[in-house]
């Protein structure tokens, strides 16, 4: 895992690593990747992935409205909002 890959991943995850820690983090990531890389030795041909321990089908909800809108509380929890909206720095599309 090179510096460039670390930078790309950091950007995708919207994280930045302090300069003084970046080498250590890169090293940690390499160690962990090596650990999970050990799975390559296991033969999994024709094995379906198991994405959930529950091999069942989803329960669904009926198309009936059941609103529990808590607009005021939602907006209150935001670091920046006005009486109607969450606010973020202006985005230019």
């Amino acid at each position, binding site marked *: 895992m090179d510096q460039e890959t670390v930078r*790309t991943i950091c950007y995708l995850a919207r994280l930045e690593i302090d300069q003084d820690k970046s080498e250590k983090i890169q090293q940690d990531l390499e160690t962990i990747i090596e650990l999970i890389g050990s799975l390559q030795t296991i033969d999994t041909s024709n094995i379906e992935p198991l994405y*959930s321990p529950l091999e069942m089908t989803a329960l669904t909800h009926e198309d009936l409205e059941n*609103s529990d809108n808590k607009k005021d509380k*939602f907006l209150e929890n935001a670091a920046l909002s006005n009486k*109607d*909206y*969450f606010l973020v720095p*202006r*985005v230019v*599309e």
Partner: protein
Amino acid sequence: MIWETVIGLETHVQLSTKTKLFSRASTAFGASPNTNVNLIDCGLPGVLPSVNKEAFYKAIRFGLAIDAKINQTSIFDRKNYFYADLPKGYQITQMDLPIVLGGSIEILLDDSAKTINITRAHLEEDAGKSIHDEYEGFSAIDLNRAGTPLLEIVSEPEISSAKEAVAYMKAMHQLVTYLDVSDGNMAQGSLRCDANVSIRKKGDAELGTRTEIKNINSFKFIEKAINFEIKRQIKILENGEKVTQETRLYDSSKDETRPMRSKEFANDYRYFPEPDLLPVIISDQEIQKIRDEFPELPKEKEARYQGELGLSEYDSQIISSSKSMADFFDAAVKKTKNYSLLSNWLIGEISAYLNKEQIDIHASTLTADKVAMLINRIDDQTISGKIGKSIFEEMCVSRSTPDEIIESKGLKQISDDGAIEEIIMTVINENPSQVEAYLSGKDKLFGFFVGQVMKLTEGKANPKAVNSILKDKLK
């Protein structure tokens, strides 16, 4: 050099469910900001989605209508990216196992029809809305739309002009409204598309580099945006340069497309199966039920109007081309026997009025009952067609029924022969010179007498009776 345009459309159809795809908050349009939002839509820590099956049923109805394969096992995936109006930091969508695979749609061109194949259609949740120009320095986030069910329909790159793209979108609009899977309201964003446009030398096997124009939401803009983009790309190619693969935005005020700044970084969406949702399985019985309840489609309506109701081919086509018009017609047909007069009115006066006002018939003051009543009054000669038009004008601005208008304005037609004869005699007596001229061969003057009678009766005299009595008296 002869250039060839290749277009593929990704259409986003907002499904007309009452509640969201993964929550039970309302999907109603126009609510005040952030009120159609519950814990799930807000993406709060600890919340979990649950699937709205109605959205599946609507997607399947669409799939069956285009003869597609329905994937009875459906899996949701997460598409990971950050955006201010995407509350969870991922969108729940379908990657590997879309609900609808394949199928095709027929589009109508000037003198011909063309079949456009559909690659796939999948369910996904909509994002919220960012409002960029209301607050200085800030974008405001409204999550009302977040989680609204969308069916994303991906066409094969088989569309070869802006005109065809518009025809495709019109066909799509007709289909989804007919199927009642969407209200098709483009102004409210219920039907919008992304256009992938590329240019290649005619005869080339390989596709050129494409650009994607995002989020076009009217027929007019589709045509303009694509035409602009075609010209732009051809110019680039003719200068010997290369088209950059990018996402662009159509700016209707300048009638141009420009690169989208917020998409300038290449993204890697890191799709993976949504672990909070187990696979959704649709049974054969459920699909059969959707088939059994299938609504009547335009072609079937057209045939019925011609066969059962005796309308002309042209009238049948016009009326069935729009779901709302056809629904209105079907409702009115139950209340009147004069189908052809009804269809004349719908295609004539009523359509002219709706076009002028730019509204849908269901949003107007007109109801099927009232229009049927109007037709019946003309049909039973209570009023003349001409009076009918003035009653119609009144109906467009008030809530009164035709009968109420006839009553309050005294517009009932005079069909009593005695009364008409009396008035005719008055006219004859008052215009001796015209009578003389008529009798000496000036046949054209007949209209003059009719006009005078109508003037005296304020247009209420039964025209047939006036004609026959006049002829009799002027011998």
